[in-house]
């Protein structure tokens, strides 16, 4: 196989899969059939590009082929007319106006419809993430399963069930109207953010990061930015992802040990991503009232612009967390806010804020809570209590790099407690 062609197909698979599938879905009104069309188009590309060269616009080429396959499916379906439930909102006028077009034809970009369908609030949230990775990003079922630490048959069943609900309950293949858009967009952004956080710090395993997932999330956020350029929430999410992702090479030392923000060599931050992220954060904050992601981008921007390593303006970060908890009262936000309290007002205030969250059921298995307690107990010289808190965090943490970090911090505690 020609390596240039193989690379071009692989690249187009990564960047254009969602667009090709979305265009086919508009015609077939059936996500399974659309997946088949997209798969056929990429298989054809491998053969055709080998003989005729890689086209100037691979996306248009692939979309044309996928649409042609979709037309074949529709014709077959018309002869064997079954009672298949079809996607509500897809093009019903099959055939008309679908003259087979040249590869320079501009097709409507249906990826927004597709992502709003995949992230519909009537689907379970794990199903939304799975569908988005499968249909928009083109991950195989096995790859999606591995992202969720579940088996391939389990994931296949989850995807089938979700697609069945989309068809049977008639979840529309449509971008929501202006009155529904803010809530529905928030659901989409949450999926992209979850994919990013899962990639940025893998919940378990040996590697700290899952770059494949982090990069997919970045691709999705860039796609949303392109298609919804006026939405501050989208600018905020992309800014947040860039400002966080910019630190990817600085988060561990050459031996693979986790470095805290204060210990990171800022020369290793991706300056291109930092400046792009800062510009997006500024843009996201131009419109009020602030929503979740613009505020989170503002927090990330405050860290990124700290005058000295590890010494950001904590009073400003705390004020931003106060605003964030007012509009989004989640336990995770409350935990981050409590940490900001400790940094802004000292370990005693931090511990008081953390202890107020001790009974929060959603934080019960979350290792960052005892890890934060351990840090403030250490700063108070309460080393025995800090040791216990590190033990608790170690019981809950699943990522090897994070576990090593916690074990190292614990080992660095003096043997005897300085507390009374």
């Amino acid at each position, binding site marked *: 196989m020609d390596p240039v062609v193989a690379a071009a197909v692989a690249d187009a698979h990564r960047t254009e899969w969602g667009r090709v599938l979305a265009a086919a879905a508009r015609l077939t009104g059936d996500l399974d059939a659309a997946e088949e069309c997209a798969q056929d188009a990429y298989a054809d590309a491998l053969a055709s590009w080998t003989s005729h060269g890689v086209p100037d616009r691979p996306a248009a080429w692939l979309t044309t082929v996928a649409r042609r396959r979709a037309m074949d499916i529709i014709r077959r379906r018309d002869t064997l007319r079954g*009672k298949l*439930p079809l996607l*509500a*909102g897809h093009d019903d006028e099959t055939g008309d106006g679908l003259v087979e077009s040249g590869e320079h034809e501009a097709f409507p970009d249906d990826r927004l419809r597709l992502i709003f369908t995949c992230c*519909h609030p*009537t689907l379970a949230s794990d199903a939304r993430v799975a569908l988005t990775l499968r249909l928009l990003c083109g991950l195989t079922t096995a790859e999606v399963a591995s992202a969720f630490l579940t088996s391939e048959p389990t994931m296949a069943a989850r995807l089938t069930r979700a697609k069945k609900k989309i068809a*049977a*309950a*008639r*979840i*529309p293949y*449509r971008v*929501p109207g202006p009155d*529904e858009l803010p809530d529905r967009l928030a659901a989409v952004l949450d999926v992209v953010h979850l994919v990013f956080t899962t990639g940025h710090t893998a919940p378990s395993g040996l590697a700290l990061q899952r770059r494949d997932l982090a990069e997919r999330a970045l691709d999705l956020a860039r796609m949303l930015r392109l298609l919804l350029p006026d939405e501050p929430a989208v600018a905020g999410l992309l800014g947040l992802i860039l400002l966080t992702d910019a630190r990817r090479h600085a988060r561990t030392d050459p031996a693979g040990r986790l470095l805290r923000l204060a210990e990171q060599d800022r020369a290793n931050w991706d300056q291109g991503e930092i400046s792009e992220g800062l510009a997006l954060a500024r843009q996201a904050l131009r419109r009020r009232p602030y929503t979740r992601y613009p505020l989170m981008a503002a927090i990330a921007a405050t860290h990124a612009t700290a005058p000295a390593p590890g010494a950001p303006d904590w009073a400003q970060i705390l004020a931003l967390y106060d605003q964030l908890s007012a509009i989004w009262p989640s336990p995770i936000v409350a935990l981050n806010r409590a940490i900001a309290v400790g940094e802004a007002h000292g370990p005693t205030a931090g511990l008081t804020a953390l202890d107020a969250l001790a009974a929060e059921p959603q934080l019960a298995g979350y290792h960052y809570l005892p890890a934060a307690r351990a840090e403030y107990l250490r700063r108070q010289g309460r080393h025995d209590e800090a040791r216990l808190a590190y033990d608790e965090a170690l019981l809950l943490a699943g990522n090897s790099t994070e576990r090593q970090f916690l074990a190292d911090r614990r080992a660095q505690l003096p043997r005897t407690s300085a507390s009374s």
Partner: protein
Amino acid sequence: MAEYMVFIWGDEQAWERADPATVEQTMAAHRDFIARHGAALRGGNRLYPSGVSTSIRHTPDGGVAISDGAFAETKEVIGGYYLIEAADLDEALRIAADVPAPSGGVELRPVLPTS
């Protein structure tokens, strides 16, 4: 267009204990709902309490086992239903969100088309 069944789930004991003003308020809310969404309604009724339900299960030997009461013993039971028609799930959700269900909520289930 598609049909959706809107099951109205609620705490029927709370309903039986409710004072006349609350009952009247709920009935008025249903009249308002019917007036507002009449065009989408294909049917709907209030049901007798689950205590007068009869459950019928098919047994492995081909017969039926009949038992008194609802299928599942839960605090919340189906107290009524509407059958609605909507273009898609978003439209059905907007209609179903208006169904009065003061002691519970509603469940929206697409009707499988026949023929």
